[in-house]
């Protein structure tokens, strides 16, 4: 009798315990479910061989698939490189509790999604591995920012070195300029110099002074780039600046059969910006176009310069039918010191400086080029600066 009673009591206690365990279990499950469904991360579980058995909502967002599409497929097939994923997957089974690595996944639409992946073995009570749980965080943006930062850092470093070099070169440059100026004076005052020699010497001196002037503008440009002086804004007609830029390059165009075709909107196009800086950019673009056409070999070609306006912007496009730029080089042409021209022909400063200038003036540059067909550079500038 007593034993019956105690059994009953025992049963009651067990029932109570069970009920409270049930509640606890329910709560824990709710808690886990909440984490699983609200995490931005992709959280998945697989059986031992890597076949997906669960896939979180964060995963849906990340890769564009619904769980229904994925359950029963293999997780490795979502990676860009299934083989290397498989290697990680297998290594995660022997190594410590969690294994982390960065691996690119493929979005349903085809984009690459770089993820930091942690894999954890899922064990049963007997200590046997029954599957794997993975937590994947999208680090695409982070990686991109990191790369940009490295790039910015490198650019700043190059700028620092370049401005140091430019500073050092300025002094000898000044001496060359003064010494040649002095030589010029001596020659022009010299008596008993035969006219032909005088002419030769004067020509040489003129050349020296012209070339030192060129060096000076390079060092100043470089230092401008490294320091970034503020633009001087005035109102002017952008057509005037374009015509001046073309005229500036007339000597260069004279010996070619390159045609410059201007398709400007009628009348003046007033804009508030920095005319000097813009002229520098335009001259640079047209020079590049001339080079691109001449590199084609036939020396014939056309540079088409168009202007357009929208409500708030001016669009100036420079189109040439020159050699064009390969896709690979298109990525590099705005990098400092990148040049495809022969040594001594290009400094690799033109485009990065131009881009810097346009950025400073609140505009953008866009590039469209096909190798063998030609290049189109379009500058968009605000009509007036705020």
């Amino acid at each position: 009798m007593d034993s019956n009673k105690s059994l009953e009591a025992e049963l009651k206690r067990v029932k109570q315990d069970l009920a409270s365990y049930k509640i606890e279990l329910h709560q824990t499950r709710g808690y886990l479910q909440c984490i699983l469904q609200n995490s931005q991360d992709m959280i998945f579980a697989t059986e031992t061989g890597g076949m997906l058995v669960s896939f979180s909502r964060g995963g849906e967002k990340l890769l564009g698939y619904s769980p229904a599409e994925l359950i029963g497929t293999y997780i490795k097939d979502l990676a860009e490189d299934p083989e290397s994923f498989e290697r990680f997957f297998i290594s995660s089974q022997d190594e410590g509790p969690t294994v982390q690595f960065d691996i690119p996944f493929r979005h349903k639409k085809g984009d690459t999604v770089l993820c930091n992946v942690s894999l954890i073995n899922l064990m049963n009570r007997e200590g046997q591995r029954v599957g794997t749980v993975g937590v994947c965080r999208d680090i695409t943006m982070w990686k991109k920012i990191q790369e940009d930062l490295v790039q910015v850092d490198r650019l700043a470093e190059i700028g620092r070195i370049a401005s140091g070099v430019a500073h050092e070169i300025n002094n000898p440059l000044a001496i060359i300029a003064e010494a040649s100026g002095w030589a010029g004076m001596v020659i022009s005052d010299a008596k008993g110099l035969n006219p032909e020699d005088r002419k030769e010497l004067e020509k040489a001196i003129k050349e020296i002074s012209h070339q030192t002037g060129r060096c000076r503008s390079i060092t100043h440009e470089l230092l401008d780039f490294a320091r970034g002086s503020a633009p001087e804004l005035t109102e002017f007609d952008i057509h005037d600046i374009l015509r001046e830029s073309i005229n500036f390059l007339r000597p260069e165009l004279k010996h070619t059969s390159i045609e410059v075709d201007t398709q400007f909107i009628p009348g003046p196009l007033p804009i508030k910006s920095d005319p000097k800086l813009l002229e520098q950019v335009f001259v640079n673009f047209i020079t590049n176009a001339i080079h691109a056409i001449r590199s084609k070999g036939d020396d014939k070609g056309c540079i088409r310069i168009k202007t357009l306006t929208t409500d708030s912007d001016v669009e100036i496009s420079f189109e040439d039918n020159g050699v064009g730029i390969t896709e690979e080089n298109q990525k590099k042409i705005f990098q400092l010191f990148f040049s495809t021209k022969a040594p001594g022909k290009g400094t690799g400063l033109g485009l990065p400086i131009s881009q810097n200038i346009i950025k400073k003036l609140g505009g953008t540059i866009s590039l469209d080029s096909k190798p063998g067909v030609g290049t189109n550079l379009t500058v968009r500038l605000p009509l007036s600066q705020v």
Partner: protein
Amino acid sequence: MNEQSTNRIIRVLLVDDEATLLEYLSKRLLRQGYAVKVSFSGEEAIEAAKQEHFDVAVVDLKMPGIDGVETQRRLREIQPFLQCIVLTGHGSIESALESGHEEAFQYLLKPVDYDNLVTVIKEAYEKKVRLQEEKFQEQLDELRHRGMGPRGMKKAIAELRKIYGF
């Protein structure tokens, strides 16, 4: 402007630690009819200014010892009408402007263009002469108001001339 100033040879003091540069710069200026004195440091320039009068000083900003801004400040303490042209490297112009904005006649970026430098030297010279004559006239008027006799007047004017370096 009276004849006294326009016919005068412009006296230029060049201050730079780059001796070779000064050699050619001074040769060119000399040949064009300027009176030129070269100093290879700020200290040397200050000593020179104690000995003789100059109209315009061309001073390099960056020199070992006292720098260009300080040099021109001290030069003007000795010769208040002296106009200083300060040559600066790229980028140091802002800092130079902060420290000596009112005092220098002009800041020029190195390497300077010779023709441009000559133009600025002439402008600086004209400013110097103008300021100097205004002050001279002012003090002369003051002397007259004091009602000096002709002899005392002559002596005072000679004294003034000496001060102004006429």
